[in-house]
């Protein structure tokens, strides 16, 4: 295993880098998009609520692979040619944003309604009350589940391998098919994933215990 790593460290590290980049870009955008849809889902306006709900239900119930392949194959047919990394990261962002919307929405709902009422009674507008009173409390509640979403996101970024996204899984497959040392290659790939996911997983469990 040592020589396998020594001979291919450049590919492994490149893959690791693309995996991290894709995960972080998708995290940032899916946090923004997910929070927007979560807020839409709790708005007094019925039309916005329905739009938010439809978005979340659609993208939570379709496989990530279908979404990713759609972007990879269909966007080039009508618009611009996009590479696998971009298509994969867009797919990841949309898929994850639906889950984040759901998480943030349940966070907002679990903030006592009295907080919103009190803020409105103090003369704040709905937007102010949401921004300064409800959302800060909601985000504190949703940190552990958001951490778990990030772990899922890192694991899910392996779909980039389907669209030649140069990520860890893709590089691992390339190395496995060159060296024929499939078992050890996949073990090394697994260790790289665990370097990211395990610490977050343990930290989130610790947070859950201390916040509870």
């Amino acid at each position: 295993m040592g020589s396998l790593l020594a001979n291919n460290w450049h590919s492994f590290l490149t893959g690791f880098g693309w995996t991290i980049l894709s995960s972080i870009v998708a995290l940032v955008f899916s946090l923004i998009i997910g929070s927007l849809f979560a807020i839409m889902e709790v708005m007094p306006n019925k039309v916005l609520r329905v739009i938010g709900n439809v978005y979340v239900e659609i993208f939570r119930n379709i496989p990530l692979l279908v979404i990713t392949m759609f972007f990879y194959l269909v966007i080039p047919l009508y618009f611009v040619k996009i590479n696998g990394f971009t298509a994969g990261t867009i797919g990841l962002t949309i898929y994850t944003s639906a889950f984040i919307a759901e998480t943030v929405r349940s966070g907002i709902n679990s903030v006592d309604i009295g907080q919103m009422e009190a803020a409105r009674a103090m003369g704040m507008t709905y937007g102010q009350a949401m921004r300064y009173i409800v959302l800060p409390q909601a985000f504190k509640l949703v940190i552990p589940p958001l951490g778990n979403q990030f772990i899922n996101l890192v694991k899910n970024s392996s779909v980039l391998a389907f669209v030649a996204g140069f990520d860890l899984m893709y590089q691992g497959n390339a190395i496995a098919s060159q060296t024929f040392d499939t078992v050890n290659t996949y073990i090394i790939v697994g260790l790289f994933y665990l370097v990211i996911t395990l610490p977050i997983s343990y930290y989130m469990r610790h947070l859950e215990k201390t916040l509870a």
Partner: protein
Amino acid sequence: MQNWIDAYSAVNLKFLLQGLWVTVEISALSVIFSMIFGSILGIIRYSKIAYVSKIVGFIIDIIRNLPLLLIIFFVYFGLPSIGFKPDTIPAAILAMSVFESMMVAEIIRSGIQAVDIGQMEAARAMGMRYTQAMVHIVLPQAYKKMIPALVSQLISLIKDTSLTTIIVVPELMQHAQVIYGQNANYIVPMYLALAILYFIVCYALSLISKVVDRRLA
């Protein structure tokens, strides 16, 4: 130009539904296996048996934090080099069952933890053994609480079967790829069909789960 009429010919639709059936079969078998192994592992982890629970817990944490796709590759391309060569469908079921067992184990463990400790103590005080109290008192209450989490795990399992297309398991995603592989003008219709079919199955399950949850609560 995308050809919608020919893409949705009777032959193609039938082929897609055959794929959907394989998806359902793989999901059903994986669910059964992972419920059994997951429950056992979850209880072992919860029970705090010296060393055993720690080791089981560590294995659960490792596998849960790996991508399912990696486990599929490992089972299908890795295991043959150490003398075990499963066919595509058994490989898919094995990989999914291993991964989902760990997910279920974690759900079971937190479900058991959510049952008031007084239930176990009362059952023990009534003279029940630990296993009796677990099987008859704690687990039935735990499963009731876990239904939403277990169903959403089932939904992600069904979605994840699409990954097995990479080892050419003849499931829904793979059948769609075969169809648009013959004619590039079928790509958009096929992805629309995939989205609709997966959505119907998964959304129906989530609706059922909501109803069941409301009945039991």
